[in-house]
């Protein structure tokens, strides 16, 4: 008896000791400082923070907080907002700004001067803020920007695919490590020789760029290329020791892990580990709010890793974290209704989920069934049978919007064309009737189950998808059954592009698309024009549309560009090639008992830059 009592007592002491030790959940609840606890669902946290290289999980988010691009693209206005760069404009041959009286870009004069074939570039003048510093206190100058662009374009010292793509529209090229054409001009790098006048006083803040003769050429350059500190990297990297060495050693490795950036946040290396990342606000960050106070309202951000979404959601509900920087499935939305202090953000999505038909398979992958998909009548019938609202209700629990067949979100007001809707008109039952009537002209025979027959075989297609897309595919199966077409799920695997999509080995697949002024020059070509290893998986060829896209890319008249984008949307719709299924809203959650005033931003979770600029600390009793 005594033995048993002793054992029970021992166990009780053991559990009490453990219980009293620590609990990661209590840290946030007992924290009185201005620290934001952010849950992040991922497999792991990165331990290397070279911004061009780190691409896994949260790495791009962390990189964009520690480093800056020149400008940020504003999806609402289509303008570039200042970051490192203060302003920019195109210039004429004498380097004078091409601006209208109200300070807007003068596209008319730009077109007038540079539409001439003798020019194969557009000159751009960029002026930086004069008070930007790196987190080690060194001032940031145009030479840092020169170094970053120059390194990105020179694959002998930086074989970084992203950087090469970001600088692809910059007319600054290397071959075998030798500069062949200079397209970046600063006071110290040939501005005067090129005929651009930069005053001595502006030598650190003014630069000129030569970019490809398309209006979207500056987009990637301005908004994707995180600027690196030349004083850190220039002395280290060389052809023998390139920027993304496979075996970084010594100083290179040190700087991979000890980032010096110009962004508003710095990394607290001592407090960070593979499971949490701690970042502190830089008090000397050059951008301030309207009252000249800090732009971002929290002092510290503590990212906590959660590998399992259910655990992350429960951690939020129990108050272990302030916000979850991951999207939450609509299936969870009711879970939050019964909890106090929870803010559910349902932001409009910017992506369109589409069903892509293989309309033009390579010769070796053709078969009678796939040939049906090259028939526009069949594709139109299938597009008519898609009931977007049904899919939104069933797959997204209602958390989504219908997407135009022109694949342009309606909030892109400047160039959204509502006429593209006209291609798929009428109530759903009427559309089903039309769809069946259309198919009766091509494949009229049916089997006893009502499925259509082609040369005695049931008409059926596989939809290539990820396991997470099986739900959607099963509802598409329901919809297409109504027009006598059978649908099956086919797993995509880990490398669908290489295995299936680029090789025409598929009937249909699911693909998300996002089009905005920022990417449209690249994306329209990638999705509808270029045949090969691009997003034009079904190898659509439409000469008229291709000509319109080429014209849209090359025009220097912004109004004409907008009109062309509008006119291309009905063409996209009428091809019935990438048929929209829905645009899913972005659902995310935050607590309001420590911080409130969370902001809803289209396409983003509630942990976004706007929220960070507007958060308010809630104190006890409020």
């Amino acid at each position, binding site marked *: 008896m005594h033995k048993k009592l002793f054992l029970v007592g021992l166990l009780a002491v053991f559990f009490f000791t453990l219980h009293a030790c620590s609990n990661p959940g209590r840290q946030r609840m007992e924290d009185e400082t201005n620290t934001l606890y952010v849950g992040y669902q991922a497999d*792991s946290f990165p331990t290397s923070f070279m911004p061009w290289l780190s691409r896994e999980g949260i790495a791009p988010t962390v990189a964009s907080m520690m480093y800056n691009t020149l400008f940020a693209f504003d999806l609402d206005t289509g303008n570039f907002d200042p970051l490192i760069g203060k302003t920019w404009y195109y210039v004429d041959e004498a380097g004078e700004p091409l601006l209208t009286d109200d300070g807007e870009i003068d596209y008319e004069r730009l077109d007038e001067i540079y539409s001439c074939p003798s020019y194969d570039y557009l000159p751009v003048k960029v002026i930086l803020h004069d008070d930007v510093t790196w987190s080690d206190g060194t001032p940031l100058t145009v030479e840092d920007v020169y170094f970053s662009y120059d390194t990105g374009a020179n*694959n002998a010292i930086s074989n970084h695919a992203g950087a090469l793509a970001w600088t692809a529209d910059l007319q600054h090229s290397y071959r075998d490590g030798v500069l062949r054409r200079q397209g970046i001009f600063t006071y110290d790098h040939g501005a005067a020789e090129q005929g651009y006048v930069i005053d001595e006083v502006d030598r650190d803040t003014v630069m000129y760029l030569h970019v490809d003769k398309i209006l979207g050429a500056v987009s990637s350059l301005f908004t994707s290329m995180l600027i690196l500190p030349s004083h850190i990297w220039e002395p280290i990297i060389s052809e023998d020791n390139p920027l993304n060495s496979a075996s970084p050693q010594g100083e290179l490795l040190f700087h991979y892990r000890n980032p010096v950036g110009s962004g508003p946040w710095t990394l607290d290396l001592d407090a960070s580990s593979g499971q949490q990342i701690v970042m502190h606000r830089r008090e000397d960050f050059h951008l301030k709010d309207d009252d000249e106070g800090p732009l971002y309202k929290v002092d510290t951000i503590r990212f906590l890793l959660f590998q399992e979404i259910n655990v992350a959601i429960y951690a939020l509900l129990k108050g272990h974290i302030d916000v979850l920087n991951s999207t939450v499935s609509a299936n969870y939305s009711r879970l939050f209704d019964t909890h106090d202090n929870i803010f559910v953000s349902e932001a409009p999505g910017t992506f369109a989920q589409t069903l892509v038909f293989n309309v033009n398979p390579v010769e070796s992958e053709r078969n009678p069934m796939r040939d049906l998909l090259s028939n526009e009548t069949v594709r139109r019938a299938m597009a008519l049978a898609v009931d977007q609202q049904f899919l939104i209700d069933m797959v997204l629990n209602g958390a989504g919007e219908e997407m135009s067949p022109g694949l342009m979100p309606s909030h892109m007001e400047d160039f959204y064309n509502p006429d593209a809707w006209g291609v798929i008109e009428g109530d759903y039952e009427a559309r089903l009737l039309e769809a069946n009537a259309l198919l009766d002209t091509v494949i009229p025979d049916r089997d006893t189950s009502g499925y259509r027959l082609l040369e005695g075989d049931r008409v059926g297609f596989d939809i290539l998808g990820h396991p997470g897309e099986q739900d959607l595919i099963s509802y598409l199966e329901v919809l297409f059954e109504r027009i006598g077409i059978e649908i099956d799920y086919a797993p995509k695997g880990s490398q669908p592009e290489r295995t299936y999509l680029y090789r025409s080995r598929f009937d249909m697949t699911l693909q998300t698309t996002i089009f905005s002024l920022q990417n449209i020059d690249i994306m329209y070509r990638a999705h509808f024009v270029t045949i090969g290893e691009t997003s034009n998986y079904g190898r659509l060829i439409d000469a008229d549309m291709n000509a319109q896209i080429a014209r849209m890319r090359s025009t220097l008249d912004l109004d004409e560009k907008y009109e062309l984008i509008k006119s291309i949307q009905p063409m996209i719709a009428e091809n019935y090639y990438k048929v929209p299924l829905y645009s899913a809203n972005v659902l995310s959650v935050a607590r309001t008992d420590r911080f409130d005033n969370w902001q809803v931003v289209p396409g983003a979770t509630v942990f976004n830059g706007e929220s960070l600029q507007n958060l308010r600390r809630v104190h006890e009793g409020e």
Partner: protein
Amino acid sequence: MKKSYAIKRVLYSVFVFVIVMALNFFIPRIGVADPAERYYPPQGNMTDAQYEIIKQLTREQYGFDVSTPQQFLNYVGGLFQGDLGTSFRSGSPGVMELIVDRLPWTLVLSVSTMLLGLIFGIMIGVIAAMKRGRWQDTTLLNASTIMIALPGFFIALLLSFFLGFELEIFPAYTDPNMVSDFGWNMTAILRVIENAALPVLSMMVGSIVGYAQGTRNAVIAVTNEDFILTAKAKGLRNTTIRYKHTLRNAMLPIVTSIGMSISGLIGGQVVIEQIFNWNGMGTLFLEANNMNDYPLMMGIMLLLSGFTILAILITDLIYVLLDPRVTVGDRR
């Protein structure tokens, strides 16, 4: 133990390891035209010429620019120097460095689970066998049926929610400071124990049931042997019969299951580690898989295979110690 038997077993294990090493190298290359494309899929508006340059540089950096047989020789050469290659993840850390970083944390969970599972499993199994047909035995059988039907992740989630989030007895997920603040002092060790409690408990449930069932069945089988009857007839004490004669002879199947569980011991429990944010080998393998980081996948697979082969070798040798009648390949 016959010396020749041991030598044969060792040589056989080395042969198997060489085969595994070759398969481990060649299988990931099947169907991959160019490994560099795995590292750098085509991007954005990059031209074919630019992409070709990138691929060539990547091939050179990762040693894909030589013939496959030469790559294999380089790989084997590297292995002899303890070099498992370079991971594709940013910063290009060495595969060995990543594994060494994670392996101890997985061993904390796995070794604890195995030891506790063994102790409790054998105890419960012996009791159930001795009380055959009574409530102790039927309880074990019923519990086994339920526990085997319950997936590990479900048990882990239940424990995390009830003992972690609701009752706050143990941390519901790993304290992020556990690894970064670790040192050989009582506070840090206690922190590891409390953070490991729920993952170990989740893994232990299945483990106890497995060992208990195995022990029960083996003990019952041995109890019916003639030599046990002889021992009883000789008037030996029950505890002597139970532990010296019955349990020792019932150990063979248990030793087998320990041997077979070694690979799980090293590989970790992917789902359990995921639920409790435990950064071990299981999650490392998952990350490698999700990132198409096949040098890392190859490294982990090779390590697992190596340990499994070693464990089987040791099991075979222990078998002979426990039961001298056992010989492999002996046709007499």
